[in-house]
């Protein structure tokens, strides 16, 4: 058995980007910046969104996604395709609108979704260099405006699982 030395300060580490996106237009861009001094290995994309309004009417909005490596303007697919074919749990059911302001959510933005956890994910294994960005272009959505007060759009949760790698070839950053 070989001994493997792990440098806890400089080896890769898991890092998850997360954002909740309010659907205010039929086409939206979501970007995650790769931190300076690291490259980011994208492993998996986990996403979910509401599929019913407050009256539990099934609306089933379609969401198309394009994953873009912005530094190279490289599209990782030739055409937009349904996000539900990339990720689980995808459509999550109910958007919770009985929200009251709390100490940790003073503007009552915490419009939580049905607890429908991740299942199997396919692996992307795509590397983004430092100072680039992961960009998701979402389109094809039916805007769900029929929630309780009729003023709030629906939301899409996007989580990327991956690893930050210290870019030690850029020596100046580490001296």
């Amino acid at each position, binding site marked *: 058995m070989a001994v493997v030395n792990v440098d806890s300060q400089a080896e890769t580490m898991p890092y998850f980007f997360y954002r909740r996106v309010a659907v205010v237009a039929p086409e939206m861009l979501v970007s995650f910046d790769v931190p300076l001094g690291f490259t980011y290995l994208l492993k998996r994309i986990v996403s979910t969104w509401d599929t019913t309004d407050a009256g539990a009417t099934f609306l089933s909005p379609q969401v198309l996604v394009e994953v873009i490596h912005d530094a190279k303007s490289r599209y990782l697919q030739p055409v937009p395709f349904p996000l539900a074919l990339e990720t689980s749990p995808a459509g999550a059911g109910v958007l919770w609108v009985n929200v009251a302001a709390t100490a940790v959510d003073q503007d009552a933005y915490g419009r939580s979704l049905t607890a429908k956890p991740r*299942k199997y994910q396919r692996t992307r294994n795509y590397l983004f260099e430092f100072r680039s960005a992961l960009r998701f272009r979402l389109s094809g959505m039916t805007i769900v405006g029929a929630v309780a007060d009729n003023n709030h759009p629906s939301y899409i949760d996007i989580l990327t699982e991956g690893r930050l790698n210290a870019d030690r070839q850029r020596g100046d950053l580490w001296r």
Partner: protein
Amino acid sequence: MQVLTSRLDAAKLFDIQTYQYSEVLYLADTVAAGTEKLGRVAISNLGHFFCLYVTGSMTTQYDLGAGATDTGIDYLRGQLRDGSNNRPLFSDFVPLHLLLSPGRRKSLAAVGADSQTLFYPLSFEYLFPANSDILLNVKNDANVPNSYSIALHGVRVLAGASVRGA
């Protein structure tokens, strides 16, 4: 049936287990209504902990006027940190249902099926050093307390010569 194709060398295995062995760290807590709470699990001075997988579950309680009930909505969101250097491992607070399997812990009174039918532990390979804490900061958006429980599956790597006896 699993067939072993090579002989297990007990002496060698025991020798390896003197230095490193499989271990599960457990973190469970309850977050009061509309508050934020820092959960922590101590790595202790026994040795480093190389985490491999994370599993967990949480409650989905809310009071609609007739007492706390299981609505099946995820009100908890959390951010994991390496306590040794306060390094965040998530960019933001992530809803726990996107991370945890089996996920929702259904109350008996609640209607509907469990939301998770299969078990997919989250792959999370990270070395937490000895004498540090694994920190999970959790916010509860509900108007009643909600609980979570998380298991970190990994390998304990004994740290010092005094512990290893070497």
